[in-house]
Structures are given as structure tokens and as C-alpha cells.
């Protein structure tokens, strides 16, 4: 029997960082392949290459013995590959039927007129298959997240593919829907459809797959029949440690007792007056306090549930979780970008009444976002402008409010040195022209200029090279040693283990585990982050 799909030495790099190394894998027809791996192990990159969204740097793919080099999603569809993505690609303003047949509407005769009745009957058939009881002309926007996921699955099925890929299809499904979906997968398997199933729920993967493949750091570390694997072995294979990464040493331990290690935060008198005026209290407490940040019972329906933790001065606290565990959403709520329904957030014992970014900033909070391109930087603006963005107000002259160019330039100069931004780039060069590592230094520098007491970092070293990574880690620790509390979100377990004093683990919007440095255990952390519960 010849393979339906074959990867041969597939290699891919992003900006010099390898994300897939020499992947060779054959998929026999009629087989369900379970694919597991941590975040960033390379699963989605591999899928994107298969789907024609990315081109490999080296290696080739074979489909039914012939060369397969897709240049776009249409090529993948043409050979019969369908995707059910984790993030939905539906059009909420169109009906279910229209979403299913958007590019291949059944027509009335030769005219390009949609045969609405045919759309409805065809759609009803596929909806029945996935177990969704909604009329085909229902607008997708009126469906729940789980129902939308089922529509996405129906859409993939309606193209009558040879190979179908499921990327975490059950995250937004209820238990009943999940059971129905698994029954559907069994039916499809019985019909001989070839499938690739990606999930973090290892029990499900083990139960549904004929073969398993484990990816780690872009390498295929294991591939074999299901009988060779169990949950323990999968976890062990997934976490295996990377040895090429070094972490800077801590100079000073975090504050655990009562002795403070907090520098006096220099306060601009204007700013102090504002704080005074708005908070109504006469004092501006900036000294050491324990805990620095306290979060109690933070809840937002459907996003985070009952989150409580403390962050102390001088502490580096890590938040680990798989994609979609609610880590970034938690950070956004803390920084006042998204609302919350219940619970409280306080800094130095003072609750943030209605957190808004400006308010949080005044309280000494800083938030480095996950994506420097989308919301971390003004790409076309200059390096100096980006660096000065957050602290611009403190350079306004009293009275006129005009900018003091002299102090501004001095601040930019000092922070450039502090974050070791490449000296060859001029202050007025657009940030777009910098490398990823240097761009990240600019984002970090921008926030460090504000001398934050609570520094929230979301994936601070994503997609940058090892050297820049080390230096950014150094800057983070320096900030902590100066007395700030650092909350660092990362998908890279190694990074958190190397840097943090304590690690919190999130799963499905909840905190599920907490480990202090002496208890760090890769397998335990990963196990907590993976879904334990399986719907049967």
C-alpha cells in the first residue's frame, strides 16, 4: 500500500530560527494520525505548509505518489485536503448554507443563479452528519461558539475530502457535542477517510488515533502505532529538555520576608498631583508593599474563572498554559483592556476600581503585549518615537505643556544603552527596519522607561534569536532585582523554568496548579496544562 501523503525532509525557519527540522513522515490511506506536541513544537507550521499557506525552506511533499507543492489554500482543496482550524474561518454575516458552499454554489441550469433549495438540502445533510439541529438558512452570527465549530466541521466534510485535518476541534464544544463529534470521527474512520487529529487532550488522541506522532522543538521525536504509546510516554516525549539554552543568574532573591528591596520610584510632581487629585487620598504610596499585586476571584464569563494569586516585589512569576488557556486574556483584564465581572485587582493593597490602561499605568503597571507587530509597536514610527510613547507626558514642560526635547533625547539615549539596542540604527529610523530581536528591545525599553512596579510580559521572547533572548531575560531579571514584580506569560516551559521564582499553570481559563522554584517539574506542569478530563 502506498502512502497517501508523504513529508520528506520538511524544514522551515522563521527569521533564522528553525521551527521545523527535517520532518519525514508517511501517512497511509485510511489511517487516523494523532499529532501531539507542546505549543511551538511546530504542529501548526507543518499544517500551514500542508495547506499551502507557507512554503517549506527545504524538503518536499508527495500526494498519492506525485509531487505536491501547494501555492495556496486552493491547491490543497483541489487535491482533497480539508482543514478544521482552531480559530474559526466562518462568515458570521452569512447563513450556514452559504458558508458551506461559498465558492461552489449549486446553480440553476447554466445561469450563475444559486439553487437555494439545493443548498438547503445539501446543507441539511451535512448538519445532520455533525449533529447540529439548526435550519440551513440560520445566520452563523446567531450560533454559539460550539455550534459554529460544528458548522466549520460540516464545511470541511461537504468538500468531500480525501484527507481531513482537525486542529483542536473540541475546545469550544460542550460535552454532548464532543461525544457526538467523536462518534462522527468513528463513522468517518469506518468509511476509510484519512484524518490527522491534533489535540492537547491526550486521552482523546490515544483513543481516536491509529498512529501517533510526537513533535518537539520542530523535530519529529516519535511516530508509531497507537499500541506503542500511553499518556505517560507521550508527556515524557513532549517535554524532553533543550540543552542549548542558557539563562542569566539571579543576583538577588525575591522579597519573601519583610525586608524591602524596592527602590524609590522617582515621581514626576505633576503626575503625583494628578494621582492625588483623582484618587482623593493625599498620599502616593510607592514604597515596598506585600503583596505588590493581588488578584482575588477574578472572573469573566466564558474567559477566566475565579483567578486568585499574589505577586510580590522582586518576584518573577510565570504563567504557563497551552494556547487558548486564557493567559493573554488574563493579562488584558489586569491591564484594564477588557472588563471583568467579579473579583478584584489591587496594587499595594489599593483596589483598582475601574481598571483602564491609563489608570493602570499611573499605578505603575506595564503590559508588553503578545504581538509586537500588531499592538506592541508603531512600525512606521521611529525608534525614538516608539521608545518615548509611554513616558511622553513626563517630558512635558510645566506651564506650556510643550515637549522638552532635551530630557526626551536623554531618556531615549539612556534606555537605548540599557536595552543594548543595536548602535547602528539611528533614532529616527522606522522600527520596521529593525530585526525581531531589536524590535523587542524597543518594546521592552518603552515600558522600562516608565520604571514599572508591576511588569506584565506576554511572550517577551517569541521569535527572536538566542542572543537577544538572553539579553532580554537579563533585563527582565534586572527589573525584578530593582524591586518590581514581574508576571511573565510564556508558551516556552524552559523559559519559565529558567527565569521564574514561581509558576502558575492555567487551563481553560482557570488556575490549576502553582509551583515554587524548588518544586519545578516539567512533567507535572505540562500534565496540569493538558486537559485531564476527556468527554466520554
Amino acid at each position, binding site marked *: 500500500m502506498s502512502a497517501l501523503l508523504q513529508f520528506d525532509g520538511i524544514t522551515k525557519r522563521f527569521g533564522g530560527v528553525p521551527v521545523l527540522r527535517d520532518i519525514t513522515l508517511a501517512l497511509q490511506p485510511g489511517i487516523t494520525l494523532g499529532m501531539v506536541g507542546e505549543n511551538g513544537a511546530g504542529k501548526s507550521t507543518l499544517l500551514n505548509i500542508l495547506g499551502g499557506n507557507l512554503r517549506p525552506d527545504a524538503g518536499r511533499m508527495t500526494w498519492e505518489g506525485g509531487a505536491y507543492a501547494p501555492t495556496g489554500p486552493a491547491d490543497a482543496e483541489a487535491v482533497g485536503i480539508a482543514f478544521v482550524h482552531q*480559530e*474559526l474561518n466562518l*462568515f458570521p*454575516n452569512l447563513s450556514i448554507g452559504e458558508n458551506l458552499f461559498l*465558492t461552489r*454554489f449549486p446553480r440553476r441550469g447554466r445561469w450563475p*443563479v444559486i439553487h437555494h433549495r439545493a443548498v438547503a438540502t445539501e446543507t441539511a445533510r451535512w448538519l445532520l452528519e455533525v449533529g447540529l439541529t439548526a435550519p440551513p438558512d440560520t445566520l452563523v452570527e*446567531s450560533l454559539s461558539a460550539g455550534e459554529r465549530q460544528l458548522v466549520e466541521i460540516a464545511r470541511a466534510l461537504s468538500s468531500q475530502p480525501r484527507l481531513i485535518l482537525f486542529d483542536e476541534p473540541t475546545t469550544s464544544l460542550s460535552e454532548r457535542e464532543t461525544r457526538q463529534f467523536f462518534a462522527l470521527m468513528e463513522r468517518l474512520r469506518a468509511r476509510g477517510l484519512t484524518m490527522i487529529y491534533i489535540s492537547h487532550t491526550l486521552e482523546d488522541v490515544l483513543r481516536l488515533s491509529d498512529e501517533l506522532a510526537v513533535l518537539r522543538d520542530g523535530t519529529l521525536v516519535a511516530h508509531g502505532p497507537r499500541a506503542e504509546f500511553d499518556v505517560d510516554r507521550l508527556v515524557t516525549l513532549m517535554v524532553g529538555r533543550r540543552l542549548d539554552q542558557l539563562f542569566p543568574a539571579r543576583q538577588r532573591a525575591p522579597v519573601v520576608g519583610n525586608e524591602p528591596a524596592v527602590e524609590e520610584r522617582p515621581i514626576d510632581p505633576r503626575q503625583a498631583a494628578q494621582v492625588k487629585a483623582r484618587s482623593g487620598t493625599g498620599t502616593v504610596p510607592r514604597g515596598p508593599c506585600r503583596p505588590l499585586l493581588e488578584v482575588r476571584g477574578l472572573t469573566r464569563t466564558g*474567559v477566566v474563572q475565579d483567578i486568585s494569586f499574589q505577586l510580590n516585589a522582586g518576584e518573577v512569576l510565570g504563567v504557563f498554559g497551552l494556547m487558548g488557556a*486564557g493567559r493573554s486574556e488574563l493579562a488584558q483584564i489586569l491591564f484594564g483592556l477588557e472588563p471583568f465581572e467579579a473579583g478584584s485587582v489591587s496594587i499595594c493593597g489599593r483596589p483598582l476600581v475601574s481598571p483602564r490602561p491609563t489608570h493602570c499605568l499611573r499605578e505603575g503597571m506595564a503590559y508588553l503585549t503578545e504581538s509586537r507587530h500588531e499592538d506592541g509597536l508603531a512600525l512606521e514610527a521611529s525608534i525614538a518615537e516608539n521608545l518615548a510613547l509611554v513616558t511622553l507626558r513626563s517630558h512635558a514642560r510645566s506651564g506650556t505643556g510643550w515637549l522638552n526635547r532635551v530630557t526626551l533625547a536623554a531618556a531615549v539615549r539612556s534606555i537605548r544603552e540599557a536595552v543594548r539596542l543595536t548602535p547602528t540604527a539611528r533614532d529616527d529610523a522606522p522600527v520596521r527596519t529593525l530585526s525581531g530581536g531589536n524590535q523587542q528591545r524597543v518594546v521592552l525599553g518603552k515600558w522600562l522607561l516608565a520604571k514599572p512596579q508591576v511588569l506584565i510580559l506576554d511572550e517577551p521572547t517569541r521569535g527572536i534569536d538566542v542572543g537577544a533572548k538572553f539579553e532580554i531575560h537579563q533585563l527582565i531579571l534586572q527589573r525584578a532585582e530593582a524591586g518590581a514584580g514581574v508576571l511573565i506569560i510564556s508558551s516556552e516551559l524552559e523559559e519559565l523554568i529558567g527565569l521564574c521564582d514561581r509558576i502558575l499553570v492555567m487551563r481553560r481559563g482557570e488556575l490549576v496548579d502553582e509551583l515554587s522554584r524548588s518544586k519545578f517539574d516539567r512533567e507535572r506542569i505540562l500534565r496540569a496544562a493538558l486537559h485531564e478530563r476527556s468527554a466520554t
Partner: protein
Amino acid sequence: MNTARRHATLLMLNNVPMVLFVAALFGFGALAPSFLTPANLLNLLVQASATAIVATGATFVLLTAGVDLSVGSIMFVAAALSGKLLLTQDWSPPLVFGSMVLLGGVCGLLNGFLVARLGLIAFIATLGTQYLGRGFGMWLTETRAMNLPENFTQLASLRLLGVPLPVLAAALVVGLAHGLLMHTPVGRQVYAVGQDAAAARKAGINVPAVLWLVYVLCGLCAGLGGAVALAQIGSVAPTFGMNREFSAIAAAVLGGTSLFGGRGRVWPGTAFGAVLIQAVENGLHNANADPYFYPLVTGGIIFVAVLLDSVRSRLLGALGRRRIRPN
């Protein structure tokens, strides 16, 4: 706000244009009894027909989350060029009608090229062609008004089975556009592109082709709307078609078309929006209101419509947000 209440609010917001329309009709009827007479209502339709035609074209563009600011200038260029041909080359009125529509289509091609091919922001691209068109028309007419012969202007008062020709033209355009949007594959793809162009490309839709199409259709409609307006007015002044883009976009938005793209209909939406705008002007006139007061009222109504649109899109955004935890 919980999901059920959000859905209820949405349903209400989606029907506000209709409520506004009925309220305007009866409000003016109460103010001035002459407003609700059959003669005045037919007159209202005749007055609204050019706006309805141009607004139908504008709706196509708005549905893709674009905008066409050049429709007024397209009307002017088409009218100026065709008027010249009519007067100097002695073209027959139907031929002039046809040439205006075609000229509008050519202008639409230019907009399509700028937006779909060169990838310019629609707002800026069509602002540019607006100036370009106005300037070109001024140069053609040497900024003098051109009076058209009676054999052309009488087209506006022609009736077919008792229905005035402008109304018939508007009905035909609205009907064709409605059919295209609702019942053809490319029509549904227009909605997909307006919702999310990147997702549409991933789904295998030829996004540039859809954009070309909407700008050309918008140009064609502007040409035809210009011809109807020209027959009604009877002369090409340098201000011909000026601010028409405003009333066209306003009619579409009043009819429920979203400026964020992907939502709206030509029928009943835009058609009623066009009549509503005209009804306000006509009604104020019937109620003997100060003419300087008209723009204030129209502007106010449009602000309300745009506000509702933005509230609606925020609600939809909240409804569509991906959830981490199933409830």
C-alpha cells in the same frame, strides 16, 4: 449584557431604518396634509429615483467595506461629455443615455484599478478620482452651464403604463441589484469579502475580482443616475452631481447598510433609505420649513443611522468573540 438580550437588541437595531421610515411618513403627513396625497407620493418617488440608483451602486461598494466618494463627479463627467456630444454631434437622446451609463462604467474601472489592483485605500483613491472627475468636467464644459434640448428632458416625464420613466429605471436597477446580491454566487461573495477580506481569500474567493466588480457596478449606477438626474434638471451646471456621494451613502446607511462592510441590502434597505431622505426634504418643504433647516435635519438623521450601525457592529463583535470555556 447576556446573549439573549444582545440578540433582542440586535433585532431592534436591524429594524430601525424601517421604523424611521414609517415615522417620517406619518410625521410629515400629520404636519402637512398635502404630503400624503397620492400625487405628492408619486412625485416623491420620481424625485428619489436618481438618488436610489446612485445609492444602489454605493451599496455594492459599502458592502465590501469600501467607499466611493467619486459618484457625484462620475455623474458630472458623464453628463458633461454626453451633453457635448448631444449638442455638437447631434446624438439621439437614447444614445446619450447609453453613453452616460458606459462612461460611468469606465470611471468605475479606474476606481477598481486603484483599489483592487494597486491596493489603495478606497477613501483616498476615490477622493482623488472625485477631484479628477470634477476638474475634467469643468475643463470640458469650460465651467459654463449647458442647456439640453427638450427632446432629452422630456424623457424624464415619459410614462410607461402610468409609471414615470425615472421610477421605472430605479425599480429595474434595484431589482437587478437585489437579485445579483441575493441569488448569485458572486453576490454572496461580496458579503464575504466585506466581512473579512483575508478570510475570504483563504476560503478561495477571488477578492480583487469582487472589488473590481463592485466599483464598476457603482460607476455604471452613477452614470445611469446621472442620466436620470440630467433629464430631470435639464442642464449641466458646474455643480451638477455635487454632494451626490453624500446622499447616496446616506441613503444606503439609512437603509441599514453597514459602513464596516458585509451587512445591508439594496431591497428594501437602500431603496427605502433613498425615499426616506427625499421624504424628509419633501416633507419639510410641504411643512413650509426654512430651507436652511433641511441639512440640519438630514444630517441629524444620518448621525443617528451611523450611531446605530456602530452600536450594532460592537454588539456583533461581542457575540462573535471566541470563548475559552464552554458555558
